[in-house]
């Protein structure tokens, strides 16, 4: 492998990893405060991409406006999902909300199939994104660098919210003890709604960037990235934002580099993440940045 090829692969890994990281942050935030694997997150990701497609093709919005509208809509959708499918189950056993989220995930996916048909569609890319920068033998599409930079900015913004604002304080309080948070006057439902809004907006952002990177969308596009991002979140220690980012990037590198170095394994690429997951859970069940929780007697 030439150095140029290696750099190319490394850049691709970084892009893919950052996309995983952005989705993983949504999982990790919801899991962190509600202890809920939000299966519907991968469908929010898919709808984010579709909303842009719709905005551009159906309402002929300019591209940046379509992106902004999509992010606002998906944030609203995330809040609605929480309101309808999760809030009534706050006092129920945790597994009920999980089943509800699987139901929501299937519901959104099939609504998308009904409305958009199951056929893959090409997406619009602004012209400046089509022009690769060529450095020596390395071809870099703007999106390749765009994604990691944006991911870092989003992560910093999020860390600011979680550690420097009142809402963030509320999030951290709820994640420790939801009942006590109620007693302490935290507006629990509002904080959770904001969390879902932020997580969904990030999922939309990554869905849009995913569609730009791999310019095709279809109703099932969220499933595999969704699972992998969840695995990234577990790998990094679920509940930790930095962990989600590190986990996402590591997963991106493992996936691309394994295929690059062992082309024979390319068919198995979708299984790497799951093997990693099972391995991580075996040796470090709480992930890299996770705290150990003891069983309460």
């Amino acid at each position, binding site marked *: 492998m030439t150095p140029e090829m290696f750099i190319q692969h490394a850049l691709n890994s970084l892009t893919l990893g950052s996309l995983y990281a952005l989705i993983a942050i949504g999982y990790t935030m919801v899991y962190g405060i509600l*202890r809920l*694997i939000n299966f519907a997150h991968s469908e929010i990701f898919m709808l984010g991409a579709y909303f842009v497609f719709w905005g551009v093709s159906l309402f002929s919005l300019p591209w940046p406006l379509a992106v902004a509208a999509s992010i606002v809509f998906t944030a609203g959708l995330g809040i609605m999902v929480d309101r309808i*499918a999760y809030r*009534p*189950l706050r006092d*129920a056993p*945790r*597994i*009920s909300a*999980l*089943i*509800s989220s*699987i*139901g*929501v*995930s*299937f*519901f959104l*996916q*099939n*609504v998308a*199939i*009904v409305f958009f*048909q*199951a056929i893959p569609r090409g997406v619009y890319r602004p012209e400046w994104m089509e022009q690769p920068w060529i450095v020596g033998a390395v071809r870099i599409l703007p999106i390749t660098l765009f994604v990691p930079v944006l991911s870092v900015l989003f992560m910093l913004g999020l860390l600011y919210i979680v550690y420097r604002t009142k809402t963030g304080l509320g999030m951290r309080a709820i994640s420790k003890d939801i009942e006590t948070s109620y007693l302490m006057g935290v507006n629990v439902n509002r904080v959770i709604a904001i969390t879902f809004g932020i997580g969904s907006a990030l999922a939309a952002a990554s869905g849009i960037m995913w569609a730009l990177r791999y310019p095709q969308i279809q109703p099932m596009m969220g*499933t595999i990235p969704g*699972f992998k991002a*969840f*695995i990234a979140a*577990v790998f990094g220690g679920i509940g930790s934002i930095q962990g989600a980012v590190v986990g996402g990037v590591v997963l991106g590198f493992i996936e691309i580099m394994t295929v690059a170095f062992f082309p024979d394994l390319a*068919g*198995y690429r*979708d*299984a790497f*993440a*799951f*093997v990693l*997951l*099972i391995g991580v*859970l*075996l040796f470090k*069940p709480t992930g890299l940045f996770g705290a150990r929780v003891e*069983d*309460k*007697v």
Partner: protein
Amino acid sequence: MNRGTLTILNVLAMAALGLFVWWAEGSLDGYKIQILNLIAVNIILALSLNLIYGFTGMFSLGHAGFMAIGAYVCSILILTPDQKDTLFIIGGAAQWVQDAQAPFVVATLAGGLVAALFGFIIGFPLLRLGDDYLGIATLGFAEIVRVAATNMTSVTNGALGFKGIPAHANLWWNFGWCLVTLYVIVRLLKSNTGNVLKAIRDDETAAKAMGVNVFRMKLLSFTVGSFFAGIGGALLASLLTTIDPKMFLFTLTFNVLMIVVTGGLGSLTGSVLAGIGITVLLEWLRVVENPVYIGDFELAGIPGMRMVVFSLALIVVILFRREGLMGMREFSWQAVGARLGLGAKPGSGKGGVAQ
């Protein structure tokens, strides 16, 4: 009610089922027979998942994986060598796949046993995990099975899958296995082991404190569950006569989970009833996807609508009737007797397992 009466009632019930199957085979059309077959297979799958999840409290999302294993093992064993020659067009079959041959009953059993073996092996690392981690890890296992089925071309024929699998699975086989499943799981749950499993479900820490070897019990339940999931997959393969990796997506697990949740976690009766109801409902919902004709005017069918209605139903059930159809109650002859005023104490059947 004494033991003898119960035995007689059970034998009578089985005879009634046999009579029904005999009648159905003779007088129902192929489509209805197919639905009955699917009902039997779905009940087997639901019972096995209920054992794992409803009675032992292990949230497993790996059913599609075990079913795939059962389906592939069974198909490899019942496909004739000639069929394998024509099926494996890319690179041919591995020698042992080409040579493997067995009658249907052995093939089904083998499917179940291999699935159980996988359940046993992955149970070792995975069953130490907590509920939703276990869910996602078993889901990962199912996904790995699917990816392997797509790529191990010399064994599974890759993405093309198998076509023309001999259709041995008729009503007798399916309902026969359904009874076996019910019998084994009822026996297991009525034994002391069953109480231990329920104790683990209700409070694992407390069960551990009482000296229960929690891990061993979980592994037992998981392995038995995987066995019957494999049997279900094997029967399904021979019933549909065609399998490919795409069949074993998460959707398949979702359908089984839906039956278990609707029927009631921890109720075998619930699984049986919901298995019948949901299989019929799923078939009936196909109408939504077919084009509707009003005179000359054609209303286009809506592909995907079936699953929209179906997933909505799951959300409604979990939001408004969390305990499902039956909660944790079971059918029992005593309760029927009490209802009919035959002298047994009312409510004596509650919480027990079907007689």
